[in-house]
């Protein structure tokens, strides 16, 4: 059963252009995604594709000039804004991208213990610290005394000791050592295996592939494909969307070949398929309207040519 479900989420920002003109920019349109129990869902895409935005919308921490529509369901029940806020920190643990989310005036050990709601918090915190190679002395330190990598591991610990049902991790790995990354990823796997769920937001497909069950590919504010992890293999023949295939081929361990062009700007999106301007399969029909999401071979795709 889907533990968390986002249905037709659209986000727009109202912002000032030059001078006094104000305009509405649609940054996310009709996005739907499901997070199943016991599953790790990786969300990959380039910067500006709306990955972090989705996390912020789910945690109800979007900036004030944002407008949203659509619904979020938790264990099958639709959530109001208030319920969503209440969920955060209890059922939903967030590992933010920025280490500035740590409280600068509290010892980090205490901060980590706070997110644990039952059981022996101190013991839990110590064992989690040990597993992330954080020494005993670290729990008495304040955030400004930590290196970037240590702060990041502290954030990981916060989620690890919590009794949340869902972890949303926004780029948790950059700047960390290979060993720690593996440790963190293994922890996510264990977490998910206890009938909980993890949403891992990353631009690093390599990391996502090692632990995720499904991968959702974002492009210009929408999901272009949701595929089981096994489809990412060989030359990418099993992948559905041309963008996903290009992404896969561009990896250094594969062909390392780019496709030309860049992701369109949100203020200047094409009328039809968002990927059409860069797509090798582009036809007249692609430029008429945005393709709908459709089921295809145990996954989903937003492309009229995909087979």
């Amino acid at each position, binding site marked *: 059963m889907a533990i968390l479900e986002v249905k037709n989420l659209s986000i727009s*920002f*109202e*912002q*000032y252009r030059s*001078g*006094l003109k*104000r305009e509405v920019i649609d940054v996310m349109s009709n996005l739907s995604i499901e997070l199943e129990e016991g599953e790790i869902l990786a969300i990959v895409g380039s910067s500006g594709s709306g990955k972090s935005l989705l996390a912020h919308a789910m945690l109800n921490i979007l*900036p*004030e*000039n944002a*407008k949203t529509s659509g619904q979020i369901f938790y264990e099958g029940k639709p959530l109001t804004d208030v319920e969503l806020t209440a969920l955060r920190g209890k059922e939903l643990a967030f590992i933010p991208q920025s280490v500035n989310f740590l409280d600068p005036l509290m010892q980090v050990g205490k901060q980590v213990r706070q997110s644990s709601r039952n059981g022996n918090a101190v013991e839990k915190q110590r064992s989690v610290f040990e597993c992330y190679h954080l020494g005993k002395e670290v729990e008495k330190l304040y955030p400004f005394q930590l290196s970037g990598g240590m702060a990041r591991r502290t954030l990981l610990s916060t989620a690890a000791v919590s009794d949340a049902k869902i972890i949303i991790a926004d780029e948790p790995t950059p700047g960390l050592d290979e060993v720690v990354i593996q440790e963190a990823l293994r922890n996510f796997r264990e977490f998910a295996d206890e009938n909980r769920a993890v949403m891992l937001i990353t631009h690093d497909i390599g990391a996502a592939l090692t632990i995720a069950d499904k991968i959702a590919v974002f492009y210009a504010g929408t999901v272009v494909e949701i595929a089981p992890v096994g489809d990412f293999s060989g030359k990418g023949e099993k992948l559905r969307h041309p963008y996903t295939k290009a992404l896969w081929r561009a990896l250094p361990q594969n062909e390392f070949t780019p496709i030309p062009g860049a992701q369109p700007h949100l203020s200047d999106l094409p009328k039809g398929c968002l990927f059409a301007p860069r797509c090798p399969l582009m036809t007249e029909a692609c430029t008429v309207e945005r393709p709908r999401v459709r089921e295809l071979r145990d996954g989903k795709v937003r492309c009229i040519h995909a087979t």
Partner: protein
Amino acid sequence: MKMNLLSNRRQKTLWMMVIGTIVLLAIIFSKVWVDTDKILTNLNTRNVAPTWDYLFGTDWLGRDMFTRTMMGLSLSIRVGLIGAIGSTVIALTLGMVAATMGKTVDRVISWLIDLFLSVPHLVALILISFTVGGGFKGVVIGLIATHWPSLARVIRAEVMQVRSAEYVQMSRRLGKSNGWIAVHHIFPHLVPQVIIGFMLLFPHAILHEAAITFLGLGLSPHEPAIGIILSESMKYLSSGLWWLAFFPGLALLIVVRLFDKIGESLKVLIDPTKAHL
């Protein structure tokens, strides 16, 4: 969601700035449009309560309080303007010097800033203006000498931050000189800080000028600034001539508030993290 209620904030701020500037100019050049004859002693119209002819009433010598208030404010604003400009120049100079001329200079200037901030504005202002001989000159020098520290600190911090920024270090490796970096990298960051700093200094300077003049330590009674008008009026308050202090005081408050408000909204407008709210 809040957006709809607030309507277009940029437009609002801009309108307020236009109105504020018009009010300011109107007051500074009040000599042109008010009837200066009304300020002369006229014993036939003594102690008139506010009417349509005498909007703010008249005083014990029959002088029109509206005209006096306008001319008093005009003088106060001019003094405040000179004070604020002078302070801003000092703040800019000291702030930049502190951030660029090495550790010793920085220490001396930081110590000076702390020194001035540790003494209440008004006390330092009174002491300085008294020492240099009081009067118009004394007040102006006093205002200039006391209002720079907080802005100097902001500018020092800004310069230091930009100087150590990665893009400035990159610029050095691209062969740019210190002068080039100051003009092209640092200066653009200071402009908004200086404009906002100036806007926020301005009401302060006016208020402090009025305060020490009210206490009798500022401008002389021959120069009818708003502080003089207020302190003279105090004597007549108990005899029921409430309008003598009420309207000039209110006018002063409105002017000060107006500029404070403009400064604050400008600050929010320029702040990139709040620019779209």
